[in-house]
């Protein structure tokens, strides 16, 4: 049996008056590919930020690979968990190779990182990773000159170099057009499978969730609405999940 990668127990988070998450509990096995869906404001991003240790939960326990998440040092945690977001995550003024090799910083000392800034170290790692996402010819390009889809692929290469066990993807394709979005998601899932990693992604497009993921966790108003294998999720459940809030949005817009 696969080991338990993530274990949430009674996680609660409150922002002033609004409850972002209330007593959320679930478990993720190694190798699972999970899509977190739900209407905006359901708590998807809060959940991901808690998993990434960016946000501290008010209550509850979070275990990553059998250890309380807060026990890890920053560097240890980077070996366990990697994060990819919608955009703006790269340093645009640096060449692509530095943004990719940033995935190695957790293993490099200060001297080696300085040296690498002048003369890229472990260059083959970056070139290999970029080749796997189809950006082999952009190694020394200034990152800001790349298109949105290409920048997301650079972010993927950073994860390839970082090699965490669990990847958290926060709306990884929301800023891209549908063709690009399919591209990036297919690539993300393929790489996760090749590296035998675990993936948790928040998505706002249900279609992507059903195509690329094997388990769907739906949140509504900070609560677990359903947690099912992707193949068992029915259209009716989905329309119910989005129904109320979309109706409200419609009313607000007209």
């Amino acid at each position, binding site marked *: 049996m696969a080991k338990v990668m993530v274990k949430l127990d009674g996680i609660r988070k409150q922002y002033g008056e609004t409850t972002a998450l209330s007593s959320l509990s679930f478990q993720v096995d190694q190798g699972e590919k999970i899509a977190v869906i739900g209407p905006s404001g359901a708590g998807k991003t809060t959940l991901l930020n808690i998993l990434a240790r960016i946000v501290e939960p008010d209550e509850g326990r979070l275990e990553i690979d059998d250890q309380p998440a807060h026990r890890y040092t920053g560097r240890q945690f980077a070996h366990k968990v990697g994060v990819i977001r919608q955009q703006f995550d790269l340093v645009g*003024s*640096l060449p692509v190779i530095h943004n990719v090799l*940033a995935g190695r910083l957790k293993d490099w000392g200060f001297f080696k990182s300085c040296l690498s800034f002048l003369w890229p170290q472990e260059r083959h790692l970056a070139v290999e990773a970029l080749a796997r996402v189809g950006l082999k010819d952009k190694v020394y390009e200034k990152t800001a000159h790349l298109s949105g889809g290409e920048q997301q692929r650079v*972010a993927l290469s950073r994860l390839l170099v*970082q090699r965490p066990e669990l990847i958290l993807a926060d709306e990884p394709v929301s800023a891209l057009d549908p063709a690009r979005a399919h591209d990036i998601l297919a690539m993300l899932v393929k790489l996760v499978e090749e590296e035998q990693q675990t993936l948790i992604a928040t998505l706002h497009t249900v279609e992507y969730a059903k195509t690329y993921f094997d388990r769907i966790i739906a949140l509504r108003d900070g609560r677990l609405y359903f947690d099912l294998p992707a193949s068992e999720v029915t259209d009716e459940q989905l329309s119910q999940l989005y129904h109320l809030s979309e109706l409200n949005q419609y009313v607000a817009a007209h």
Partner: protein
Amino acid sequence: MWPLIDFHKKNVLTGLMFLVFLSSLLYIDWGPELIHAGGGTSLWQMVKGMFTPDLSGDILLLALVASWQTLVYAVAGMTLAIIFAFGFGTLASGVLAQGSLGRSGLKTFFRGVLGFMRAIHELVWAWLFVAAFGLTPFAAVFAIAIPYGGILGRIFADMLSDVPPQPIRALQAAGASRLQLLIYGYLPLAAADMTSYTMYRFECAIRSSAIMSFVGLGGLGYQIDLSLHDLKYSEVWTFLYFLIGLVIVVDLWSQVIRKRLVA
């Protein structure tokens, strides 16, 4: 009633200030001494000098040497200033501190140091250093380096703490330490702004360097001072044109650099 007053409080204040100005006119002694009688002739000579700068070989050579000296002081002073600013500015930005308590302590201390450096004008530093070291180039260089280091350091600190947070958070998530964040995150993100501001300050340093040499340190300001004492306005203008030329050249250079950074 109160909301209406609140709404008009700017106008009320403007009106008050205007009244103060009008009443201040009552205290002026509107006699014939108000304007210096001989001033007109001097002014006319100065304007004439503007169109007839002294272009004789001696003066041009002198101006060239003086410009070079002014430029050298400015370059040396700015180089030191950049080093000071980089060190103190990075520390004052707090990006290297670990906890929030350590951060605010570090920030307060180094912001204080930078504040002290720039609170004293470069001309005052020049006088102090001339008194201490005598009329040596060191006096000029340090007189520029210290206040400019203070100004640059303050701006560097602000620029470093204002970088977009997303790339920094992403690097942190990848396991980067504080120093690694500085090299791979903060500095590249702020580099364009920092360079552009440094170039602007370099232009200011040239003007300062010229002015400072009034104290007797040599350079364009010194020559201007000498010629002014002899009432040779055409010479004054030759030196002024050289100063303007220097500033324009630096400005062009900084435009080239800025364009390259933005691209």
